[in-house]
């Protein structure tokens, strides 16, 4: 194996491939294209994957919303079409009876589902905004980024029904001057003064929330809008290892039994399962990754076979040259190893060029899509994938080189010399 590290071997190979430029370039393009497709595709798939993950990072992946609708079946003497209402009592029953629930946050809102938003006033400025009544546990299900100096609603706020609120970025820019610190300031929400304790940063992540929402303690909301024990909807996060689809069914059947609804009634409670949607999207992204891997490797394969093909033709072309070399004292092994090394060298060079080109393209796409709505972030190809591709190329390059190499030495030097 010493010849691999011998400078002379490489000088001979450089001589051979450097002086047959057309052949070399054509050979290289095949593999270059293959590895380029592989890198660009798998990087893009990864970028899409990252993009989806980023879009969902503010919401627990296995969360769901559940709300009450009206019955569609008569049951236990109740007629059909009965309007249902979630109650605070449902929360503890659900927690006890559905073990898959990790966190459950009852929520109320005003100005979201068709009713009138609250009038919010700060001095001379005013606007209409949606108001949410929330528990601190809500942030465990959907992360709320709060700007420095502020906080979200805490347990004391709930206990004492404090009149505090967390406002949105847009609310701040519309109600306050630019250099004014909103934290600690008072605003009037539907004629009640609230002290601002935080400003939340809006991250788009599905759902109906916007950058102008105002969050107040659930208990305060109840007093302000006289909602009593009513709950608008429940936001539920299941444990990571739980089956979200099963959890959704369990939650609904427990609710049906509490509210005396026919277990078969599909329309009594509405729900939206983020986890299921998320799984579907991630499944799509995984499928993309797999597809790009298959397509990429197939393209590399095609490229390497192309190299073999061209080398085979070139061996035919070089029959005489190889015959001369053997007459001058090249052993069959020397001839073979020269052709295999040419093959491997071309493959690796083409591969490295393809990797560089692919990486450049990926970073170009990244800089174009950055900050846009397109779910695409940080497109990378894991190093093992790259190394794997390189190893595949070296192995395939060697194997494919064996065919022309074997052909080259199968001709007797005397016949090779005779060939015109």
């Amino acid at each position, binding site marked *: 194996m010493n010849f691999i590290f011998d*400078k*002379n071997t490489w*000088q*001979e190979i450089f*001589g*051979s491939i450097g*002086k*047959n430029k057309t052949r070399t370039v054509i050979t290289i393009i095949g593999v270059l294209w293959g590895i380029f497709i592989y890198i660009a595709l798998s990087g893009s798939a990864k970028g899409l994957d990252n993009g989806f993950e980023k879009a969902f990072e503010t919401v627990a992946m296995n969360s769901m919303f559940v709300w009450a609708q009206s019955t569609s079946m008569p049951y236990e003497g109740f007629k059909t079409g009965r309007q249902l209402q979630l109650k605070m009592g449902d929360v503890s029953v659900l927690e006890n009876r559905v073990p898959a629930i990790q966190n459950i946050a009852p929520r109320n809102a005003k100005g979201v589902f068709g009713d009138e938003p609250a009038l919010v006033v700060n001095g001379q400025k005013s606007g209409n905004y949606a108001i949410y009544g929330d528990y601190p546990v809500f942030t465990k299900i959907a992360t709320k980024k709060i700007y420095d100096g502020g906080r979200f609603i805490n347990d004391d706020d709930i206990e004492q029904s404090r009149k505090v609120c967390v406002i949105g970025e847009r609310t701040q820019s519309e109600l306050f001057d630019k250099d004014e610190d909103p934290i600690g300031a008072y605003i009037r929400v539907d004629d009640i003064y609230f002290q601002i304790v935080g400003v939340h940063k809006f991250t788009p992540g599905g759902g109906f929330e916007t950058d102008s929402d105002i969050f107040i303690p659930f208990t305060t909301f109840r007093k302000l809008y006289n909602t009593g024990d009513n709950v608008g909807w429940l936001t539920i996060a299941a444990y990571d290892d739980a089956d979200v689809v099963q959890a959704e069914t369990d939650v609904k059947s427990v609710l049906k039994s509490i509210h005396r609804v026919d277990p078969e009634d599909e329309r009594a409670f509405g729900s939206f399962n983020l986890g299921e949607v998320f799984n579907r999207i991630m499944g799509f992204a995984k499928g993309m990754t797999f597809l790009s891997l298959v397509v990429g490797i197939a393209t590399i394969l095609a490229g390497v076979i192309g190299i073999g093909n061209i080398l085979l033709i070139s061996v035919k072309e070089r029959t*005489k*040259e190889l*015959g*001369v*070399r*053997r*007459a*001058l*004292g*090249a*052993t*069959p*092994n*020397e001839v073979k190893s020269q052709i295999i090394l040419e093959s491997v060298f071309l493959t690796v060079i083409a591969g490295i060029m393809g990797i560089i080109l692919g990486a450049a393209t990926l970073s170009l796409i990244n800089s174009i899509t950055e900050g846009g709505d397109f779910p695409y972030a940080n497109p990378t190809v894991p190093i093992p994938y790259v190394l794997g591709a390189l190893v595949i190329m070296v192995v395939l390059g060697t194997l494919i080189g064996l065919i022309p190499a074997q052909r080259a*030495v199968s001709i*007797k*030097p*005397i016949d090779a*010399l005779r060939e*015109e």
Partner: protein
Amino acid sequence: MIEIKDLHKSYKMGSNSLHVLKGINFTAESGELVAIMGSSGSGKSTLLNILGMLDEADSGDYTLDGVPIKNLNETKAAKYRNKFLGFIFQSFNLINYKSAMENVALPLYYQKIPRKERQERAMKYLEQVGLKEWAHHLPSELSGGQKQRVAIARAMAAEPKVLLADEPTGALDSTTSYEVMDLIQKINDEGNTILVVTHEDDIAHMCKRIIHLKDGVIEKDEKVTQVRASQYV
């Protein structure tokens, strides 16, 4: 230097067998310049190929510089060729993408001689054949005579025991042929053993000994007075 005893060689042509060499015996001493003559089909090229270890005899003994040449595998044959023999072909057989110097240096590459020394030695032999200025030209930029001189330099570069020339002037006009023969004579003057296959009488008479082959046997083996090629140049 070369010893051949009862050499036989036949080629299979379908169901027929063509007996090309029918018992060849001869010896060549060191420093001889031998012409092997004969019409086409007389077996002279076959004999040269066997001498050059490019082909193997069916039976008979072949000893080169005291080394019996028998049952060689390709690798061993290649090593012997590299060590003992220099080839000069009718069609020059230079590698077309290598410069004159690189062509001359090629046998040295297979002797694992470092690049620098290879190039120095190649330049030395190119100078000897008078082509020092053409060292970096490709074969396509050289005339026929120049190509053959590069080929001779290449055959010399490995400092072989025997030079084998297969119709070295076959593709050249007579003036160039004499130039090439002049060079071969000069190399012989320095003590090198050279075998030349030719079917041209005047070329044969520029050697010191002529072996006439006919139908696979040696018809005549004669010493001749050498005609110096330099008088025609």
